[in-house]
């Protein structure tokens, strides 16, 4: 398995076939260089999500999303023509979580109106952690959760698109999974029990993670010297990303507002 790294965005990819002259799936630039083997050693994916939509449907989904951003530059819609399919790594953990918390609870009695409280919660958890080095956890979180029914065993030979090897190791992803799971569990507990200002500590006995691949289509737009990236879920066509504002359109609106104001004053 040959791992390539983009010299511009540092994204890593395993290409299907030779892949000579292929552009980086994350930033679109053709600056991929091989990574020395001792440095790569990526873990093998266990499962991959089946493609829910094809490239044409992804283009339509992205074009529709772009059309709703009325203040975005016109070039945003054109970016739909350059959607690239890539598989992103995602760690999935299942385990038994224990959370110890302390916080304040409102009370009608006493002077200060608060009483401190502490306790523990235990229960099973299931958590996904983005293992991509090129995309942020926030970008990927917008495309979750995935439909478990569409998961199938991963076969790299049959995948016709590049995939990103995990940049976050299982070891490093595990505490993140526990923290995220505990945060969600505590948020629910606080809502259910009227607990306020609570903080927690969490622990889970180590459980093995499963590396899964999430197919997405990626489009990039270079606007005003900055790269803007948009991610389209290849499962259901949901789009994640922030569109830039067109200075031309904003200027036109401001000019129109000024003209209207001048006309009203006159």
């Amino acid at each position, binding site marked *: 398995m040959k791992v390539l790294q983009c010299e511009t965005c540092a994204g890593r990819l395993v290409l299907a076939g030779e892949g000579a002259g292929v552009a980086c799936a994350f930033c679109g630039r053709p600056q991929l260089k091989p990574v020395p083997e001792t440095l790569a050693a990526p873990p093998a994916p266990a499962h991959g999500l089946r493609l829910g939509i094809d490239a044409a449907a992804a283009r339509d989904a992205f074009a529709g999303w772009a059309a709703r951003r009325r203040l975005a530059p016109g070039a945003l819609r054109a970016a739909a023509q350059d959607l690239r399919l890539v598989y992103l790594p995602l760690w999935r953990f299942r385990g038994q979580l224990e959370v110890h918390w*302390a916080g304040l609870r409102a009370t009608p009695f006493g002077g200060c109106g608060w009483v401190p409280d502490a306790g523990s919660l235990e229960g099973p958890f299931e958590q996904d952690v983005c293992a991509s080095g090129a995309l942020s956890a926030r970008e990927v979180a917008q495309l979750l959760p995935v439909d478990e029914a569409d998961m199938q065993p991963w076969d790299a030979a049959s995948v016709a698109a590049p995939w990103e090897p995990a940049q976050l190791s299982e070891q490093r992803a595990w505490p993140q999974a526990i923290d995220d799971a505990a945060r969600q569990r505590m948020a629910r507990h606080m809502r259910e029990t009227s607990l306020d200002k609570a903080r927690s500590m969490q622990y889970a006995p180590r459980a093995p993670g499963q590396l899964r691949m999430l197919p997405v289509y990626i489009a990039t737009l270079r606007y005003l010297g900055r790269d803007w990236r948009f991610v389209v879920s290849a499962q259901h066509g949901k789009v994640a990303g922030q569109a830039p504002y067109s200075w031309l359109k904003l200027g036109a609106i401001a000019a129109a507002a000024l003209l209207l104001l001048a006309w009203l004053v006159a």
Partner: protein
Amino acid sequence: MDLAARTLQCTGCGAKLQLADTQLAAECGYCRAALVDAERGAAAIDAILPLSVSAERAAREVQAFLRRQSGVAREARRQLADPRQLRTMFVPHWAATGVLRTRWKAEIGIDWTETTTRTNSRGEKESTSRSRTDWFDLQGRGVAAAERQLVSASPSLGEIASNALGTYDTGWLQAFDARLLAGCQAELPAITREQAAETVAVEIYERHRSELVDQMLPGDRKKLLSLERDLHVEQWELLLLPVWVATCSVGGQPYRVWVNGQSAQVAGELPVSWKVLLSENTWLLALAAGLAGLAACAWLLGMR
């Protein structure tokens, strides 16, 4: 573990070379071929984290680190600016995996303001406010996981410098392979597992205690009354972690700058020169001169 000096034969030129007690890999002094004591390494080391920071990047990070430091002696800056000073080392670390469980008791103080309104003799309403604190007893449990908590076992990279280099993602560890050490320096541990266990216990406990008091306990005032602890270490591993090291010598005193061989974080102690510090901060000189001038004027006026 046998830490006696070992003699190895160079595979390049056949010269017989002696490795020092804790030395695991070195370069042949005659032909510069890489020498690794694979037998002793395989017996002692559980895993190696491969180097993932290039020499160019390490040199860039050292330069950036030097730019951020003020008052560094010119001689040190000159020596460290030479990228040939950089060499790779694999530093032994003990790694502990386990869990710390605690039971705590605390007093929690919550501040509030008591406002009393009364009618005075003229029939006017008067309000007085007083700050008060309500105190409550609270007890609970705490937990802290140690996922490969690292303790430097190196004679050259101390625990403080090792901590300053930041964390390593030990998820990329590989089984001992002498080829990973070729051309680098590598050491065997200079401290025992029992000594490392004491350091791990103190570090985990102190971190847990400060997390408990500073972050978890609610209220405006906190008094931690008791903290019972139970640390259970499930696994110990001896790992070799990569660093880049650049050395310089100023006034006969050696100084080192370390670069994390995985994250490229830099740490080190550098000699400070007052001359350089003042020349870099001319405003400080101007301020000192201004203050001296003012003091002289005040003194002269006082004399009259």
